[in-house]
């Protein structure tokens, strides 16, 4: 474990007494305090881990207070949210923080993930750290999806209907008896919904799980931080920390840097909460859910759009239905990231010393922006000339899988990397 100075309180003090029995102050001292040696060259992209932790706490705190005023019943959910907005003291602020907080949590986590991609933070010895992060990401997606259902607006209802309906694709594996709705997909959908369509049982179980999962996330976050402290943080050069010169204690250096980053983040966040609180939401969710009226255009929240495009890109039945392939591809797009440490075999971590990798990293970023943008369009929307959105989406989907499954394995074998510096200190300390 990346060890620092041990935490030694003055003998005979009360702190020494408690530390002998429960060394919790020492744990924090070693995890986020002066006892954790961090590389001296971390840039601002390394702020996003702490920011993500902050977002999780913020969501849990605001969420717990919102629950005190929210009613998880189809007849009362929408009304209770409006009551929070109108009659609960600062209820509007809590709800806008919570709703925008979900979006900003994803922005922060996406940047955190892309930082890991760019600097090779998934490579040995940090494979489990990376995989635990992906588990957190998957749990976040489930939590956010179920949270979006709770206000019981039109997009809540129809989003839930469309997303849960994906799972009926598993009827391709076992269709069940004719007319019995007992295929594998049917059973899964009924289990998710608590019935045959989105209704009160769906709302109740989504509410229950939406309250549970954040604490599961918090648990995995502890494992994530634990796994981080074994090898210690990666750094922009991607080379191992060697001598004393390469390290600085986490506190006060990175606590100060994180404090500055946190206030910059909060400034941007509060700009949304106080001045454009509905900019990231969909107006249809201010219409109460109506099972008889389908919105013209059902779209998930922006942070799912890239994966939604991948789902919709499969349009041809082949052995199984197109829908089945879409669902497999959508989940596969995230599952394959678990194998990234073995798909990319280059020994050099940081993109700084991998010119080709760096170029294709940015191509992948453009590809993800494209996937997200197309996700908000209808399949037959014309993008330019006569090209439909679905076609662009298919090309972007192809590139996503091509990048990870073909390009990276080949590239990491053939790429000529740049020479690595001897040590962090020798690279970043200017010679006087």
């Amino acid at each position, binding site marked *: 474990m990346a*060890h*620092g*100075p041990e935490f030694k309180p003055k003998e005979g003090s009360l702190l020494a007494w408690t530390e002998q029995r429960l060394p919790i102050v020492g744990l924090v001292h070693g995890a986020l305090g002066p006892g954790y*040696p961090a590389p*001296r060259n971390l840039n601002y992209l390394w702020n996003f881990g702490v920011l993500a932790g902050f977002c999780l706490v913020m969501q849990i705190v605001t969420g717990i207070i919102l629950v005190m005023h929210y009613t998880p019943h189809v007849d009362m959910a929408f009304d209770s949210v*409006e009551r929070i*907005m*109108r009659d609960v003291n600062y209820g*509007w*602020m809590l709800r*806008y923080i919570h709703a925008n907080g979900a979006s900003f949590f994803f922005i922060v986590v996406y940047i955190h993930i892309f930082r890991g991609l760019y600097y090779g933070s998934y490579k040995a010895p940090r494979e489990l750290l990376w995989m635990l992060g992906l588990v957190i990401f998957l749990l976040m997606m489930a939590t956010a999806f179920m949270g979006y259902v709770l206000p019981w607006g039109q997009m809540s209802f129809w989003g839930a209907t469309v997303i849960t309906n994906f799972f009926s694709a598993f009827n391709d594996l076992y269709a069940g008896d004719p007319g019995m709705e007992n295929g594998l997909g049917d059973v899964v959908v009924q289990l998710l919904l608590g019935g045959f369509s989105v209704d009160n049982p769906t709302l109740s179980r989504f509410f229950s799980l939406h309250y549970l999962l954040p604490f599961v996330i918090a648990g995995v976050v502890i494992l994530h931080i634990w796994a981080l402290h074994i090898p210690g943080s990666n750094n922009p050069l991607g080379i191992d920390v060697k001598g*004393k*010169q390469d*390290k*600085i*204690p986490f506190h*006060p*250096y990175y606590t*100060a*840097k994180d*404090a*500055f980053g*946190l*206030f*910059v983040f*909060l*400034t941007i966040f*509060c*700009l949304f*909460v*106080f*001045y454009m*609180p*509905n900019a990231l939401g969909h*107006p*249809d969710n*201010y*219409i109460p859910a109506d099972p008889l009226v389908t919105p*013209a255009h059902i779209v998930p929240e922006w942070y799912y759009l890239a994966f939604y495009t991948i789902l919709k890109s499969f349009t041809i039945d082949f052995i199984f239905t197109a829908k089945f392939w879409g669902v497999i591809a959508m989940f596969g797009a995230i599952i394959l990231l678990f194998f990234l440490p073995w798909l990319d075999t280059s020994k050099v971590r940081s993109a700084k010393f991998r010119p080709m990798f760096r170029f294709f990293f940015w191509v992948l970023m453009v590809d993800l922006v494209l996937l997200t943008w197309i996700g908000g369009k209808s399949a037959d929307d014309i993008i330019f000339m006569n090209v439909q959105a679905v076609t662009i989406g298919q090309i972007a989907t192809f590139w996503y899988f091509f990048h990870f499954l073909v390009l990276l394995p080949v590239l990491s074998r053939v790429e000529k990397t740049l020479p690595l510096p001897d040590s962090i*200190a020798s690279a970043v*300390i*200017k010679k*006087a």
Partner: protein
Amino acid sequence: MLKIKTIIVALTAIAGTAFVAIAAEKAMDNKQVDWSFNGPFGTFDRESSQRGFQVFKNVCANCHSLQYFTFRNLADLGYSEDMIKAFAAEYTVVDKEPDEFGDMVERVGIPADALPSPFANQNAARAANNGAYPVDLSLITKARADGPNYLYSLLTGYQDAPADMDMGDLYYNPYFPGHKIAMAAPLSDDLIEYEDGTPATLDNHAKDVVNFLHYVAEPKLEQRHRMGLSVMIFLLIMVVLTYLLNRKIWKPVKEGKTLWDHD
């Protein structure tokens, strides 16, 4: 050569009709109004909102409910307590609780009551409106993209239908998706005589009702803007302070000093 020209002309014509067909379904871009509630310092125009309430209760309220709006909310628009009591007392409402004999009783409205809905339920509303349902307007400016401008454009955007369009029982309004709307033009010049003497034009009626309805949709907007200003000032000060703190703390690191003296 002639053949190619014919093909090009034919293709252009096809593309042209296709475009028109698409354009006919899409709603026109909203007229943009400079609302007093826009921007970081935006507030509600009290006078206009009060006139809007007058328009709403005399015109819109004949078909549309406003279920999240209670009479006591009128205090936010600058009405005095006595006036609010008087407004509420214009209505009779059925009390939620039965009396001691178990009968439901009607009583005079009080400020805590919501504005009574014009129809008992959705079916009654549809039956009275040719099958169309006049939606609740409590959240209308938030439930439509670019809501306030959309509502203003819709209310002032009624036109004669194109000659070749079969309208049935519907009315032509290019700002409405699909251009065919079940609601007849609800506002017109000289519809309501304003108590404060403001000219009773269609444009004023529409703007006033939007001001009122945006207050109903987002009643905490002013509080939010006020708090936002304090929050932003606090955060910007903290950004500067933590930046300076960070720079000072990091000075020895930037100078290349060795700051870790263990193992």
